């Protein structure tokens, strides 16, 4: 048992941000969630049972995520008109290809069923061991193993490209299928 050192928390911001992004599916919500999590953790002295604070932060992130979602469900929704909202910043990002890939991946993780998503975020995104993930999510280690297995299967299936359709009877491959083949293999056929 030891007191949580607030200064040591800042080293986990990047990893926690990625975990939050995969939980929420959007960068903006992830920023909000991480800030809210740190504000909660720092609001009073905390005592850790283990050596590593990362699994403690994962549990705090999960609890804050659920609380925020419940609160959002009760909050009146403000509807902005098209006139009020501008398009996103049109300036190109440094590495648009990579940014698209990360966004696509985390958005797909965010669509997984909740239990599977949490297991995958804890182990694969945050980097916790199965034991730490079980501790953080308050489930048995065997449960983490099962959920992670299913989460990976589902994620893989959702991100897998559609199989190319058989060639048309006239022997000419249609343009859409051809693009899909290039996309999935990374080389032209």
């Amino acid at each position, binding site marked *: 048992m030891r007191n949580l050192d607030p200064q040591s*928390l*800042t080293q986990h911001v990047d990893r926690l941000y990625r975990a939050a992004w995969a939980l929420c599916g959007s960068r903006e919500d992830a920023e909000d969630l991480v800030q809210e999590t740190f504000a909660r953790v720092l609001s009073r002295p905390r005592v850790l049972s283990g050596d590593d604070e990362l699994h403690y932060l994962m549990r705090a992130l999960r609890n804050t995520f659920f609380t925020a979602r419940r609160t959002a469900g009760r909050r009146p929704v403000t509807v*902005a008109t098209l006139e009020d*909202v501008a398009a996103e910043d049109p300036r190109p990002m440094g590495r648009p290809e990579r940014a698209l*890939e*990360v966004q696509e*991946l985390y958005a797909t993780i965010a669509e997984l069923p909740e239990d599977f998503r949490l297991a995958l975020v804890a182990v694969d995104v945050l980097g916790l061991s199965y034991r730490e993930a079980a501790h953080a999510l308050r489930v048995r280690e065997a449960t983490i193993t099962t959920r992670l297995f299913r989460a*990976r299967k589902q994620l893989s299936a959702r991100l897998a490209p559609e199989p190319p359709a058989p060639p048309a009877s006239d022997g000419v491959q249609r343009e859409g299928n051809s693009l899909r083949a290039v996309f999935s*293999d990374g080389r032209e056929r």
Partner: protein
Amino acid sequence: MSERRPQTESELVEHVRALEEPAPAALHARIDALVAEHAARPARPSLGARLRARPAALGAGVAALAALAAVLVLSVAGGGSSPALSWRTASALTLRGATSAAPAVGRDRAQLTAAVGGVAFPNWEPAFGWRTTGVRSDSVGGRQVTTVFYADGRGQRIGYAIAAGPAPGVSGGTIAWREGAPYRMLSAGAVQAVVWQRGGHMCVLAGRGVDGATLLRLASWSDDARAS
């Protein structure tokens, strides 16, 4: 598209684990500010330590719980919700993240299209270089609070909140007068804030690490723009 796109499940897992997407610098800055603010607070022992040190505190704790329960009962009976709207709760919103894209610039270029009760948010980019980055909307104590976020070229970030309905009373801090209007300069930890009224609505401009003079200049300019 990308040759790095994983082809098998094991490659996909490796891909997820290898991602090193860093958190935005602004988020790091906000977390650093939270930790610094926490460090500046006087050390407070845990509840268990306090109870061990002073058994009498147990009685006080029970009394406090009873008082809290009474407040909750009164609150529920009155149909109210907490926390109540104040400059502190409004400025806390200015430190949070945007939930929607930046509002568009209005036709006169001095204001944005986002507004609360006919009071529009200012467009500071042409005059000061502070561009809008996003907006969020919250309900505090049953009142709608709209916050527009701005950032300058150095990465500093501020939030401008306008609360719908009559402005609540504000005390403390110091008052600066600009064009006959009072602007109250306040601070809470590392957060500087300027509180004033426009059209009877409470406006709060706040940020971490941004000096009060800058906030005052921006706040009073917005009033000029509105009057013109």
